[in-house]
């Protein structure tokens, strides 16, 4: 077993077990703590997949931002130090059955579907020094570099030619997303502001 395989099983075990713990735990604060491990494990999976920029963004935005937001939400809405809202045993059973069924359906689909993939691509693991990942991402955002793949589209129906791919830049969607985030944050600040109740002295 090489290092990559061992790392995958360690990270996948950490991520999956903490994801299950998020669901099973009744206490919301412990749930948030397990969510921290899940998000960190997913960031590790991204690093393992060679997506270093996405992994760093995951750490910064999810673990640094969203999780802190969630913990603040827990603190602002808790009346006691340990808020537990019990779920009844019947709901547990139904959730377990539905979850197992859903998981088996997705597993069957994922295992049986003929995914197009390059066989050789999984072997030439790039080292950290030669990884041009962030450079490629930036060039794709600006559209200054040819990002259309050299190889043919795998898994395409026989006898048909795949459509010509035009060179695309992701700068406009990126700008739209950033403006969207700004609008949403202003809206969230407006929604969550402290309101004075009607009739109360100012």
């Amino acid at each position, binding site marked *: 077993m090489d290092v990559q395989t061992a790392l995958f099983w360690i990270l996948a075990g950490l991520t999956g077990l903490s994801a299950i713990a998020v669901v099973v735990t009744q206490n919301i604060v412990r749930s948030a703590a397990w969510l921290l491990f899940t998000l960190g494990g997913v960031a590790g999976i991204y690093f393992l997949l060679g997506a270093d920029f996405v992994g760093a963004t995951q750490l910064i935005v999810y673990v640094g931002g969203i999780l802190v937001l969630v913990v603040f939400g827990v603190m*602002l809405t808790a009346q006691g130090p340990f808020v537990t809202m019990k779920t009844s045993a019947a709901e547990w059973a139904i*959730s377990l059955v539905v979850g197992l069924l859903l998981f088996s359906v997705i597993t069957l689909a994922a295992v049986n579907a003929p995914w197009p993939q390059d066989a050789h691509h999984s072997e030439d693991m790039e080292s950290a020094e030669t990884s041009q990942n962030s450079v490629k991402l930036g060039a794709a955002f600006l559209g200054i570099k040819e990002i259309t793949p050299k190889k043919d589209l795998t898994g395409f129906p026989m006898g048909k030619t795949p459509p010509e791919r035009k060179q695309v830049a992701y700068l406009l969607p990126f700008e739209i997303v950033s403006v969207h985030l700004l609008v949403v944050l202003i809206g969230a600040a407006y929604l969550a502001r402290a309101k004075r109740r009607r009739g109360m002295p100012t």
Partner: protein
Amino acid sequence: MMPEVGLQSYLLLGALLFVCGAVCMAMKRNAIGVLMGVELVLNGANVNFVAFARFNSTFEIEGQIFALFVIVMAAAEAAIALAIVLNFYNNHMTVDVDTAEELKG
């Protein structure tokens, strides 16, 4: 001996995260727990995006870019959802989603 780690292992991890998130959304009575379920679902989808970017050179860049977009969208969604939860708490003095039944027909 462990089976070889390929695309399908990552897809199964994404499926596990997705199912955990869906069950979490359906089962938790705390509104913030429901929000955590949404985050798990988005992470499961993101794992699939990045795995396809790694194992299929056609989507080498696109998978990662879409994953970045999903992360930004998740940040926006978490902010607005927490604002709604805070408003709900101000009105009902609890975050139990079972008490939100005023619109029930």
